[in-house]
């Protein structure tokens, strides 16, 4: 099936629908017999692994906000997870839940449930009215449990499951009716439902996104995600939340597993404002913004940099990215040279520009030393120490975050005393890091990091602009993979020209979407995405569309543990 069809406009589709369908059906029939796909530019792929992923705190919270509305306070913090091949998201399929974490989540669940059943909120959030608030009402409890359970579990609950929860709600309603808590009498029905909702909110199927697969009807030897799992993969990727009612309905009816159905669903999701939530979460992960929470500067050295500055710096970069890639559909690579951004009062202090109240769009002047994300405070401050800049951290971050390269850790057992400069009074970083390059065991790696960082030296550890360090003029010449330049503007341009820049984004987006670092076998698929990305002008939304509509996104590798699914299907 051609992906060109996927890019056709609705009008085009309307005109040619029936002819097209006939042709496609014919092709399908032919391909089912021969296993061919003559017009499909996507290389053959066995797909990705079937995963059991831990939901993130943000996804949990976003999902609850969709189900119960934004007025429910869900202050959620989960155990931090480790970064794996550039993304935290790559660890969600291996991260465990500790005993302490379960206790914390129970506490959150209790808070959320009590807010939902609060006398005001329940008028809206529990759609039905019980016959009496003092006791059980099976019909109303059934309605609530099936509706909320479906959204929380990301699948329709089966009757037996609903029956168990309703029975528990009824038993609790009888037990709790008239009981006193903190001097107030409990309403049996709602108190019973509240306890059941608490249980639903800590349920393993809510906290873990357990994917499941089924044989692909067009190739019964191959597995694919089932409808519900596909809906979850799409939704957590594009919206950073569980599927909404409409997406679940498409999964339930089987529509999502048809070509038209998934295209309709994907186009709706890509046009939704919720795409911003999804992409903010992705870039937050890719840009290592989890570090913002703990980013502090030495107040005696950088008095203008506060916790607000750190949070605003993150917000500035995310706003810049979303505006550039989604609002204006611009070339991803231009983010590293663009002078358009947004400014807040706290940031204006660091940037040394006039402040306006709140957030306002801002464009750096043509002669400004700032252009592109590398010159924003978020990148500069995160890759510095509390009291000074770091050329090595900056060079390493650029390679790892934007070019998907791995800079090795320092070799073990170095005697660092060889690095100790006898004269600590070198005025500039360039002189201080020269020692790295004089020592062979250090030079290998520092040669690929330090020349990058040195070109950003006109920005201090808080991201402020400077021309001198300790009264010595800063030499901001640097180099990146064969390009030599003077200063940050040149670095941004060199990075924009680097062919690895868009390839790295493609790799990160694909990992993030499918839940793990790409395997070596995925190389042809990634090459295909790269070509499409280039052909479509490096526009993010198009890249997302190509990826989620690819076979690679929804096919599942046949591994020993999944063979049972095929075996079960063939014995049916």
């Amino acid at each position: 099936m051609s992906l060109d069809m996927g890019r056709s406009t609705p009008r085009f589709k309307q005109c040619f629908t029936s002819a097209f369908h006939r042709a496609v059906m014919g092709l399908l029939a032919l391909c089912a017999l021969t296993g061919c796909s003559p017009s499909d530019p996507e290389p053959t792929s066995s797909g990705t692994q079937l995963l059991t992923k831990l939901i993130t705190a943000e996804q949990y919270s976003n999902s609850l906000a969709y189900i119960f509305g934004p007025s429910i306070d869900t202050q959620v913090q989960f155990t931090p997870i480790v970064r794996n091949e550039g993304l935290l998201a790559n660890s969600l399929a291996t991260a465990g839940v500790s005993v302490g974490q379960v206790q914390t989540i129970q506490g959150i669940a209790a808070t959320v449930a009590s807010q939902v059943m609060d006398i005001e909120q329940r008028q809206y959030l529990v759609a039905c009215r019980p016959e009496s608030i003092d006791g059980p009402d099976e019909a109303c409890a059934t309605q609530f449990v099936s509706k909320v359970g479906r959204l929380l579990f990301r699948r329709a609950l089966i009757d037996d499951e609903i029956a168990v929860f309703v029975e528990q709600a009824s038993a609790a309603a009888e037990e709790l009716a008239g009981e006193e808590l903190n001097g107030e009498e409990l309403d049996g029905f709602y108190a019973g439902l509240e306890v059941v909702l608490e249980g639903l909110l800590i349920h393993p199927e809510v906290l873990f996104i357990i994917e499941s697969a089924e044989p692909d009807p067009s190739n019964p030897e191959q597995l694919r995600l089932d409808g519900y799992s596909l809906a979850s993969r799409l939704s957590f990727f594009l919206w950073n939340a569980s599927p909404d009612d409409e997406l679940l309905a498409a999964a339930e009816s089987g529509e999502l597993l048809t070509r038209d159905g998934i295209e309709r669903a994907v186009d709706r999701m890509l046009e939704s404002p919720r795409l911003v939530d999804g992409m903010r979460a992705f870039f937050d992960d890719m840009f290592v913004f989890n570090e913002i929470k703990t980013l502090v500067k030495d107040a005696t050295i950088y008095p203008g940099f506060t916790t607000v500055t750190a949070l605003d710096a993150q917000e500035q970069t995310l706003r810049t990215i979303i505006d550039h890639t989604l609002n204006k559909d611009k070339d991803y690579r231009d983010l590293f040279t663009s002078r358009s951004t947004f400014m807040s009062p706290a940031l204006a202090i660091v940037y040394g520009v006039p402040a306006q109240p709140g957030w306002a769009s801002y464009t750096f002047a043509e002669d400004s030393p700032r252009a592109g994300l590398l010159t924003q405070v978020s990148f500069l401050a995160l890759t510095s120490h509390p009291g000074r800049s770091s050329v090595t951290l900056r060079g390493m971050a650029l390679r790892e975050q934007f070019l998907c390269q791995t800079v090795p850790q320092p070799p073990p057992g170095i005697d660092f005393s060889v690095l100790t400069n006898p004269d600590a009074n070198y005025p500039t970083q360039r002189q201080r890091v020269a020692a790295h390059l004089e020592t062979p065991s250090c030079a290998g790696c520092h040669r690929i990091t330090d020349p990058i960082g040195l070109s950003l030296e006109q920005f201090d550890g808080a991201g402020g602009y400077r021309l001198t360090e300790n009264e010595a003029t800063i030499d901001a010449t640097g180099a990146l993979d064969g390009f030599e330049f003077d200063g940050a503007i040149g670095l941004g341009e060199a990075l924009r020209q680097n062919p690895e820049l868009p390839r790295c984004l493609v790799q990160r987006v694909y990992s993030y979407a499918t839940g793990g670092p790409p395997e070596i076998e995925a190389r042809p698929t990634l090459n295909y995405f790269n070509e499409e990305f280039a052909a479509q002008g490096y526009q993010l939304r198009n890249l997302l569309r190509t990826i989620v509509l690819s076979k690679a996104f929804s096919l599942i590798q046949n591994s020993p543990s999944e063979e049972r699914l095929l075996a079960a299907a063939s014995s049916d």
Partner: protein
Amino acid sequence: MSKWDRRRVMKGMVKGVGVTVALPFLDYFLNGNGTALASGAPMPERFGTWGYGLGGTRKLFVPQQTGPNYDLPEELASWAPIRDDVNLFTNGHAIRDASPNGNHFTGWVVSRTGIAPESGSGPSETIDLTVAKQIGGATRFTNLTATATADARDTYSYYNASTPNAPEWSPLAFYQRLFGLDFQNPNADEFQQDPRVIARRSVLSGIMDQERSLMETVGVADRERLDQYFTGLRQLERQFEQRLTKPEPIASCMPPGEAPVDVAMDQSTDSIKLRHQMMAELMAMAVACDQTRVFNMTYSAAFSSTIKPGYEKPHHTCTHEEPVDEALGYQLNASYFTRRAMESWVDFVEVFKKIPEGDGTLLDNVLILGTTDVGNARTHSIDGMSVFLAGRAGGKVKSGNHIDLNGGSVAQVGYTALRLMGVDTPSWGTLSNECSEVISDVLV
């Protein structure tokens, strides 16, 4: 900045528990000689850990004399009030065999697991959680973990390589978790049962009934993760059960009556010291109130980013870059950071020592393992490492000795601690770190 006003807290304590606050351990709680509870059960044993980054400056850190009454070199000068409560082990190695030397990692991991981690691999179950399986099941929390660094990633406690035991990092949140709404004061006159707890327990047991069917839907590795989650649910169930019964009174339990105000997020030694003190006091009181019997505190991460305000290099960078002072022969600022860490270690031990229990103090009934990640800070060596052991473990430990490990594995101390806590294992650790003999010098 209003922080931890002791007077206010003391006032709050009195207000909080009313008349039952009295002299520590009233006679009716105890047997005749103050070594056991009246029920005949011995004082509960408790185990804790404390961790900091970057070792010290060897020549300022390692005492000349071994045995009791050892000398306190400059970096340990602050230990004077607790020297006799601590066994100090020096000159231990984290032996890596064929494993790589994970910078800032191998050292503490060997001290806490006895196993040198493979490349790219996280720590296996750390000692505190092994001990928690032995002694942590009876209390509200199987263990408590906190960090003074305000960074929820800074922990030395791991369930397994992919499951860190995340620490509490905010004193306020820690207070709320320990002494907030769900706390049952064992000395309260009235016992109020939350009527919803029985219903909660029954919903929970309904979820746990689905364990088997859910396990069948996932692969082996994911089964382990789900199993861990269900272990969490079982502990939750135990908590619910505890909330249905009135706790036995505990005289030394005097919970703070007011919530603390969080310290600024910064990494300065002053903020960290204060945050550490606040969390240590909460933690020790949680132990005294028998809310947990296993506890962990991180003073600083292995890559310690503690700063000395106005000095541009944080602790870790400083150990690499600061020149050795030619006159003194050591790194002045690096040593400053070590001294601050040792002062907080003293604070930690003293918090336990100040809480009376039985005819002694809480410190008599705990054992606290203190570890770091390197021996000599400047070279980041994983030989010549130190390990601390504070407390007397219910009278089983003879404290106040300096013991030279003579280049043996630091895991020997961990193994000794495990055996003292009743974990009956013939050996601990792997390859050259495997230990099967306790260090008898510290046994009574």
